[in-house]
């Protein structure tokens, strides 16, 4: 099995989808000639031509709106937003249109499409190349919101997303583009949407994370193990729909939960998970639920390393729920 990084897995996943399904077209800024600013679409323009790998004018509203039209007409567009931070000119198309077509037409019209965007911090990109705004999209019924943390999941989830009938926000943790490496099968496979991954099994504390916070939690779990604390790490992969069963089963086992995300704490998706645990598993809890999140400030440039949750901060939360 070839070993590759997350970026290559996305690239391979896109290539496979384009080879096997001529309805798949890509559109975005700098995705053709340049192969994407990160290289996610490298080589695709050469193989599939400018008709299927479309370098668009600089307007996210145009990219997403036209992709919706293509999806309505039967194609499987995969628009790329260069950075999640630049998605807002398309927000109206996403939340008012893409998310609502199926419902508002009583199921007559649908927009099966996969909107890809690199997300999250850790690359010294300041506010506009770092934010994690998954909660906005998770708050919009009709959207599937995915975020893989491994190359295997990136390819498998992308395949599921492209095959699926619902519009998907596919968030790629850019900090892991090159850092996350792993084996990826050459053949086609899918990773089911709505199913979390238990990245590490443990008995004492449940850590819930997604994207670039998954390896941070794994590392924190490794450090906690040295102190005799056995952590379970759950990688959500799928933010909406959420795999409540896996989270609740884990908390029922451990009695302690720490939720970790990069986005600001207030209104972050961690609040939803916290509420879920409080509603459905409070009788198992031996300590209050803890959240480790970004501060409630815009994402900074110089002080990024202070802003981002790290293993020390997660480790402290683990100790907090153990010593409660």
């Amino acid at each position, binding site marked *: 099995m070839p070993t590759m990084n997350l970026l290559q897995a996305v690239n391979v996943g896109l290539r496979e989808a384009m080879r096997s399904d001529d309805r798949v077209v890509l559109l975005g800024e700098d995705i053709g000639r340049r192969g994407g*600013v990160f290289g996610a679409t490298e080589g695709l323009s050469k193989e599939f031509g400018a008709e299927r790998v479309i370098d668009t004018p600089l307007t996210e509203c145009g990219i997403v709106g036209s992709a919706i039209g293509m999806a309505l007409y039967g194609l499987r567009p995969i628009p790329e937003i260069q950075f999640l*931070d630049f998605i807002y000119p398309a927000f109206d198309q996403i939340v008012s249109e893409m998310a609502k077509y199926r419902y508002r037409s009583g199921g007559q019209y649908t927009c099966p499409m996969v909107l890809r965007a690199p997300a999250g911090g850790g690359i*010294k990109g300041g506010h506009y*190349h770092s934010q994690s705004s998954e909660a906005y999209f998770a708050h919009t019924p009709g959207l599937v919101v995915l975020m893989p943390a491994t190359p295997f999941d990136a390819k498998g989830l992308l395949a599921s997303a492209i095959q699926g009938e619902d519009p998907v926000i596919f968030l790629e943790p850019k900090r892991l583009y090159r850092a996350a490496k792993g084996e990826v099968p050459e053949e086609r496979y899918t990773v089911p949407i709505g199913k979390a991954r238990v990245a590490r099994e443990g008995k004492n504390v449940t850590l819930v994370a997604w994207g670039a916070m998954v390896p941070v939690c794994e590392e924190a779990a490794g450090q906690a193990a040295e102190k005799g604390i056995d952590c379970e790490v759950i990688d959500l992969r799928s933010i909406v729909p959420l795999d409540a069963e896996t989270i609740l089963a884990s908390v029922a086992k451990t009695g302690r939960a720490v939720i970790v995300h990069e986005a600001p704490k207030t209104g972050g998706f961690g609040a939803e998970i916290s509420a879920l645990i409080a509603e459905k598993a409070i009788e198992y809890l031996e300590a209050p639920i803890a959240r480790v999140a970004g501060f409630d400030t815009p994402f900074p440039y110089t002080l990024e*390393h202070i802003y981002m949750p790290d293993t020390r901060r997660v480790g402290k939360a683990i100790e907090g729920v153990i010593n409660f």
Partner: protein
Amino acid sequence: MTQTKTKAKTNRAVKEKKPSIKIDDLPLPKADLLRIYRSMVLTRALDERGMMLQRQGRIGFFVPCIGQEAAQVGSAHALTARDWIFPSYRNTGTAIHRGVPMTEIIANLYGNSLDLSKGRQMPNHFSFKSIHFVSISSPIGTQITQAVGAAMAARYRKENMVAITDFGDGATSSNDFHAGLNFAGVFKAPVVFLCQNNQWAISQPLCDQTASPTIAAKAEAYGFPGVRVDGNDVLAVWQAVKEALDRARAGGGPTLVEAVTYRMGPHSSSDNPKAYRKDAEVESWKAKDPIDRFRRTLGDAGILSEADDKTLWEAARQEIVQAVKTVEAGPALPVETLFEDVYVAMPKHLAEQQQALRREIEERGGIRHGDGAFPL
């Protein structure tokens, strides 16, 4: 270059100067001409140094303006002190010509405690309130509508302010470009739209952005004039922008000025343009380098000798070296500042987060300082 069928016109000063020029033929006094040239040189020297600082890992990122100095300095020279600028991230020349001290510019690249914006943004995203240089953001085009609003506000207050907004060719595809021009036309706002058409939006050439023969032509549909000017001729830019400002000030409404220029360098320190554009194209524009051109004009007019030029370059480089030194000696950014300026007063939940961070740092026995460079 395609000519537009619309009101877009080419300025008189666009034409190449003949070898020997009388100083009286030039539209500005000698002191102004030299000041313009000096700003162009400073901008170029800073760009050269900025790219080096990034390569050396002393700053994380850099955006050069190389090739666009005439468009920036020429337009800045046409403004009055009261006018407001709504810039893009490629506008350093404008700030330099407005007199921002080099240390303030360089402090922004380092984002330490000397940075007026407190290290909140990536390099080249300046905010210089004292010269009405509004805070730059990365999202393309957002400043365009804002400039229109400021212009409307000035008129409401019966103040003689004209707003100018700079943006690239790529930005003409943005929602804000169309909304902004439409508002300006409808409300006859005292605003000047300055498109620095440098032919590229990262890897995408102008033809990817528009099927229109020129950008200037777009103004017509919004009901006001569009002017196309040689953006590498600093005096032509000055004149075109000045006419647009004068008209706006007199109540004549907005103008779209398209300064035709070229991004001679990479999009940013993270970009490698060799991957998508031909060397020959870059070379052909090097022959039209705005600084060389203006130096020849000044030389022909007898107001800048080779020796003067050399001294000027040396002084510019020296000024930058000094400023880098000063900034590098500046203290690190205090961690507390992370929580400031989110709101006018710090709400309780932020104060608590700040307090928790303070405790965390005490327990850790200090903090490590950030490193790493923006990889793009």
